[in-house]
């Protein structure tokens, strides 16, 4: 199964300032990433810039409102993610537990299983799938 693993933001990560105080954590995280690769579970991942560099688009009926960052609810924001292929949630949890603390202070990591094509069943018609596939292709510039 595939899981998306979210590293939640903190006040520190939201400043966007990266300095010497983070060196140790970066090194530990580098080693951890290497372990994930060697265990064959890592499919991808990246760190995200703070929400002040981001934007939101709010939907309400036909209106679309663009909201500039930063966003307030820091603990709900995502600061980074991995995509893993694991056998089950237990394995995902065991791997997350051995992650070095990704932040300087207290922090949180959230694990969310992905939907697989099978989960959609009848809800995904061939036409809808076709469009999904096309959109993905365009996104990937192929």
């Amino acid at each position, binding site marked *: 199964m595939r899981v998306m693993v979210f590293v939640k933001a903190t006040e520190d990560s939201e400043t966007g300032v990266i300095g010497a105080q983070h060196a140790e954590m970066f090194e530990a995280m580098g080693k951890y990433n*290497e372990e994930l*690769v*060697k*265990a*064959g*579970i*890592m*499919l*991808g991942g990246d760190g995200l810039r703070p929400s002040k560099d981001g934007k939101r688009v709010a939907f309400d009926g036909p209106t679309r409102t663009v909201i500039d960052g930063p966003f307030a609810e820091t603990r709900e924001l995502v600061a980074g993610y991995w*995509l893993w*292929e694991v*056998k*089950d949630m*237990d*394995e995902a*949890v*065991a*791997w997350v*537990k*051995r992650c070095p603390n990704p932040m300087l202070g207290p922090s949180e990591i959230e694990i969310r299983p992905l939907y697989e*094509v*099978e989960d959609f069943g009848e809800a995904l018609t*061939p036409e809808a*799938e*076709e*469009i*999904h*596939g*096309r959109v*993905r*292709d365009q996104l*990937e510039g*192929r």
Partner: protein
Amino acid sequence: MAAAETHRAIEAVFRIERARLIAGLARMVRDVDRAEELAQDALIIALAEWPKTGVPNNPGAWLMAAAKRRAIDGIRRDRMRERKHEEIARDLDDERDASVETLEATMDDDIGDELLGLIFTACHPVISAEARAALTLRLIGGLTTDEIARAFLSAEPTIAQRIVRAKKTIGNAALAFEVPRERERAGRLASVLEVIYLIFNEGYAATAGEDLIRPSLCAEAQRLGRILAGLMPDESEVFGLLALMEIQASRLPARTGPDGALVSLTEQNRARWDQLLIRRGLTALARAEALGGANGPYALQAALAACHARARKADETDWARIAALYDRLREVMPSPVVDLNRAVAYSMAFGPEAGLKLVDELAEATALRNYAPLPAAKGDFLFRAGRLPEARTQFEAAAGLTRNARERAFLLARAAACSR
């Protein structure tokens, strides 16, 4: 946490550590069977201790230490049996310290190296390919004998015996549990890659409705391939094989219809192809090529698979490129099946006559004498060339050779279409 939940959490930690644990222990005690037992002992100790103490910070090291203590106790017991008790009472402490030191020295090596050593040992060419696959799934993949038996559609005692014999062979041959160097390396790596691809293909051959353990072999093989790529980042064919598996696996959701029948590549709904796997496959292929391995047999097969993966619609397929890749593949991996596929690619790229020319050269090959795809392909070329009566004969011949009822019906329908 409820006791059952704690149990599951501990077992998940153990699953992560198991292969490395066995790898380290096997090198230490020079006995895979004993290494497996010791690892299992360590799990039992952890299940007793961790609920009280919590999972230690470095569970791998903890488990290894526990297993090592067990190994040392075993050595002591053996010595006890060999000698008189009085002598032992005198020597034991010194000797034990010496054993511990030797053991610890073996443990200091790079852990990644040890896992790789175990993979190479389990895939040693002295063991038959089927036994290699079973042993690899057991030791590295952590599958039970029952799961492996179901996956390979075999009886459990057959697989159990196969594994026992393979372990014995490893012991008798006194294999070193090491990654072979220089001269031996290429051949031994080929043997490892062969096993992983065998496991993958076994899963790929599974049809809908079968025991789910069979299709999961694809995922097992992909994981093995990813592990190997992580451990051997400079071996181009490792990335070639990984690319091939990722791209082929990307089609798994599309290759069976609602009725469970296989859907051919050109008929598949490409929107169902797993784009993440395609992207991973293309990245791995690029890596294989960057490492100078563009002409490796796996890299070439991956490049072929990539041609299909890149085509958004079947009729956008770059058949000329596929034909050129087959020209190269038959140089490094000569086989009548490759030649037949090459003929198909030529027919698609340059017209049915080009395919006919190649397939006629092939008809002499004894290996393909009773191979239904040969007359089926020839029938298709003839049909497209407008030579309907000849095409009909070929389709009928192909229908007579295939054992698959669905395929036979398809070929007979094509034969009938020649009379219209």
